[in-house]
Structures are given as structure tokens and as C-alpha cells.
């Protein structure tokens, strides 16, 4: 019996490793080619580099204006996620603790709105907000992310807050604390696991989002995904630069993931079970 188990275990290990390599191979291919001069790529895209050049990275960095795009991405993601945490947690607290027809209906509308695809309102969206966007497109984008993200985030917080006993609020209220203090001093600290979920789910979405920034941002305020799209057009000639650019674009998020791996995984699972 134990021998059969041992073989089964080995088989799972081997098949797992093969699949893992297959999943990772595209990255290897990108990395290898980012280090090669142009003609070596054309000659053989699969071979290891004969001469290693960092030239592609320099070129790509200039072309995609790497540091500016990175800064834009960071600013937009951090501010949007921060605002979403702040406003959704407060809204969820209000909706979970105030029992009325209005709060019930509002919550239902929020949940239902999650099925609406962005495409269904994208076209009027641009003509409605054109002026606002031209005023300050980064601020506009953050404002839009709050609007589009508030439903899911509030939903996640709502499920958690409903499980916190009301006695807690009441006791604090007896002691003379007002709603605002009760929420920030007592309830919000208890929400940490959901806050992590809300932060990660929204950060992944906003960091990688393409369609909305493409409609809203200008070249000066472009984010990393937009700056990599630039390699799409001139792709047929400058493979090496494109590969280097792609690596530069994915590096920040992969580093971020490796640092916060545990939070990512538990964040996604708490988010999903709700």
C-alpha cells in the first residue's frame, strides 16, 4: 500500500513539475530574448544568448518612459485603492447597521450593478465626462475607479460587518462614543482581513486595467500597461526591446506579489467565499 502511494506521489510530483515548467516557459522565453541583440533573435528565438546585452532594457526604458509610467501607475493605484477602502468600509457599515427599506434597496442595487459590463456604458461615458477628463485626467480616473469599485468592495465589507455583534457598538455608544469614533476605533480595526482582500482585489484590477485608462489618460499620464502597448505597433522589428519592456512592466507587480504572497492567496480566497 505504501509503495503504491509512494509511486502515486512521485507521479503527481512529476506531472506537477512539468505543468509548472510549461506555465513558466513564456517568461523564460521573454527573458532570454530580452538579453539578445536583434539579429540573434531573428536567427533563433529559442537559443540562449551568445552575447548578453542590456541595451534592450535601456532603449525600452526610454521609449516607454518607464519611471514616469511607473509613478503614474503607483499614484493611481494607491489613491484609488485607499479611497475605496475608506469609502466602502464606511458605506458598508452604514448599510449593515441601519435597517430600513432604503438601505436594503441600496444594497441590492449595488449587488446587481456588478453584472453590468463596463462596455454597456463606455460610449455615453466618454461624452458625459469629456470635460471632467480634460480638466485633470488622473483625478478623473481615480474618481471613476471609486464609482466602479465601490459595489464589490462594499459587498465584501458588508458580509463581514454583519457578523460583528451589535452589542459592541451599543456598549461603546453607552460610553458616549459617537458613530464616527465607534467605527474608526472599534469596527474598522476588526475588518483587517477584509481590508486586505479589498486592497488586493482592487489593486490587481486597477494596476492591470487597460480599457478605461486608454480612454481617459494622455501620453503624459499613461500607466505601465498603456506604455507597453506602444511596443505592439513597432513590434515586427524591435523584438528585443519589446521583450525587455514587457519584463519591466511585469516586474513591479511580481515583486509585490512575492513579498505579500500569503496575503494575496488568503485575500483571494476570502473574497471568493463571500
Amino acid at each position, binding site marked *: 500500500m505504501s509503495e503504491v502511494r509512494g509511486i502515486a506521489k512521485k507521479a503527481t510530483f512529476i506531472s506537477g513539475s512539468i505543468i509548472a515548467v510549461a506555465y513558466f516557459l513564456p517568461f523564460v522565453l521573454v527573458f532570454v530574448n530580452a538579453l539578445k541583440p536583434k539579429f540573434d533573435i531573428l536567427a533563433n528565438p529559442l537559443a540562449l544568448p551568445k552575447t548578453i546585452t542590456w541595451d534592450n532594457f535601456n532603449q525600452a526604458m526610454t521609449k516607454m518612459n518607464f519611471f514616469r509610467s511607473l509613478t503614474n501607475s503607483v499614484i493611481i493605484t494607491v489613491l484609488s485603492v485607499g479611497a475605496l477602502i475608506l469609502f466602502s468600509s*464606511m458605506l458598508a457599515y452604514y448599510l449593515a447597521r441601519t435597517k430600513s427599506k432604503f438601505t436594503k434597496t441600496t444594497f441590492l442595487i449595488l449587488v446587481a450593478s456588478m453584472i453590468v*459590463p463596463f462596455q454597456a456604458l463606455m460610449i455615453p461615458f466618454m461624452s458625459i465626462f469629456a470635460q471632467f477628463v480634460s480638466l485633470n485626467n488622473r483625478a478623473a480616473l481615480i474618481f471613476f475607479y471609486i464609482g466602479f469599485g465601490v459595489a464589490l468592495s462594499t459587498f465584501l465589507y458588508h458580509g463581514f460587518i454583519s457578523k460583528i455583534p451589535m452589542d459592541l457598538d451599543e456598549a461603546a*455608544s453607552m460610553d458616549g462614543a459617537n458613530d464616527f469614533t465607534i467605527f474608526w476605533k472599534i469596527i474598522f480595526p476588526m475588518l483587517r482581513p477584509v481590508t486586505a482582500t479589498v486592497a488586493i482585489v482592487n489593486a490587481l484590477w486597477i494596476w492591470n486595467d487597460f480599457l478605461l485608462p486608454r480612454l481617459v489618460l494622455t501620453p503624459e499620464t499613461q500607466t505601465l500597461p498603456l506604455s507597453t502597448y506602444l511596443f505592439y505597433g513597432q513590434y515586427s522589428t524591435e523584438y528585443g526591446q519589446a521583450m525587455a519592456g514587457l519584463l519591466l512592466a511585469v516586474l513591479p507587480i511580481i515583486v509585490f506579489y512575492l513579498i505579500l504572497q500569503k496575503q494575496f492567496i488568503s485575500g483571494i480566497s476570502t473574497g471568493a467565499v463571500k
Partner: protein
Amino acid sequence: MRTGNSWKRFFIFAAFPLAVFAIVLVFPFAQGFYLTFTNWDGFEQTAYVGFDNYTKSFKDPVFWSTLVFTTKFVVVSLIAVNVVAFGLALLVTAKLRSANILRTFFFVPNLIGGVVLGVIWQFIFNTALVSISTKFGLPFFAESWLNQTGTAFWALIIVTVWQSSGYMMIIYITGLISIEQDVIEAARVDGASPLRMLWAIKMPLMAQAFTISLFLTLRGGFMAYDVNLALTGGGPYRTTELISMHIFQDAFAFGNFGTGQSKAIVMFVIVAAAALLQVTVSKRLEVER
């Protein structure tokens, strides 16, 4: 919360986020719905046209082929992503010492945005695979998969599976871990084979994970845009345009705002109906614990 002073509370806690939600989502959605019944050209509307935009949309043969292509894509990607993701979840929960590393490898493609992903895979299909094919004489990849509608479809599926199976895997892992160990022990004592254990015990007990994962892949399939744009760009000859790109092209490339928006409303109705149907059916299959 204390009773009384309810207006003040509303303004402190709820007014701003609800206002933003209404301005950004509710209002444009209602406006978009209304505009489909007018002769709106992106700037102004001067007359009501009834259902003209909808009839025009449905008379557009490209729209029909897009709908068929999108449906095929959603069905195939839904099945492929979930089968692979569930398989990966079983693999990672099989008590291997390397489980953590494997999980990371499977998950990382999910961190990467659709555009970057599309460009990477374009390189693979157009250059790397063609080069392998000429070197080893494999006719399978001799021509880039992206040049023909049939193979380009499978290229889209492969990339979608690569991207989203890791995320769904996490959801399935959570489901698998949440099953009480004594139920499994009891089944083992009763002599259940591993396959039967999976089918009759584990899968019903984690049905909620299937509900969520199927919902997310369904929605994702209908809304897919980035991968489509960067991998095939809709080509050859608009035959691989998914509905999202089709709407974008119709409105912003060809300037057909009226039909573009009515197609978007059609898309919304399809997504909502499909999602409701899927969730109702899956919810019925979930067991109470």
C-alpha cells in the same frame, strides 16, 4: 448605530460613495439605454428613432458572426479554464512538499495584464513556434496560429487558460481545504475509491467554489478585451473580434455610436441572463452544510 440623527449619519457614512456610484455607473448606464432610441451621433440627438438602432445592429452580419464567435469563446474557455484550474487545485492540495512553489508558478500569469500577456504570446505564436516548426519539421506550427480564424480561436483559449486558471485554482483550493477532514475519513473507512471520493464527496461539498468560479469565468469571457486586442487585434478580417472589441470598433473606429451602444445593451442583456441562469442552476446544486 444609534437611532435618531439618521440624516447626519447618512451624510457622514454613505452620501459620497453613493453619489460617486450614481454619477459614474447608474447615470451613464441609464443615459446609454435612453440614447439607443435616438439618432445620437456622439455629440447630439435630434429625434427619436424607436428601435431603429437595434434593427440595424441585428442586420449587421459582422455583429452576428461576433456573437457566434463570442459564445463559442465563452463556452470553451469556461470549460477549459475550470477543468484546468480544478486539476491544478487537486495537484497543489495533494500534500506535496513543493506545493507552495507550484502554486506560485500557476498563479503568476494572473498578475499580468492582458495586453502584456497578449504581446508575449504573439511573440510565441508568430516567432518562437514557427521557428521550432521549421527546425524540427513540425507542420503543426508551420504557419502562425494567429493568421487563421480557426487556429487563432485556440490561441485565444490557450492564453486565457494560462492567464486565469491560477486565480480559479485558488478558489478551488479554498473549497477543497474547507471540507471537514472527518467526512473524508469516514468515506475512506467505508472504502470509497479516490475517484468516487472526488465525485461523490468532495465536489458536492465544495459546490460553492464552482458557483463562484463559473460565474467569474463566464463574466470574464464575455468582457474579454485586452487579450483579444493584443493577441489577434480582431484579425484576420475582423473574424476573431469578441463582442467587447466589436462594440469598441463600431463606436470609436467607425463612428456608429447608435448601433455601438445598442449592441452594448444587447451584450448587457446576454451577460445578465447568462449569469443569472448559471448562478441559479449552480446554487441549486449546492448542498446545505
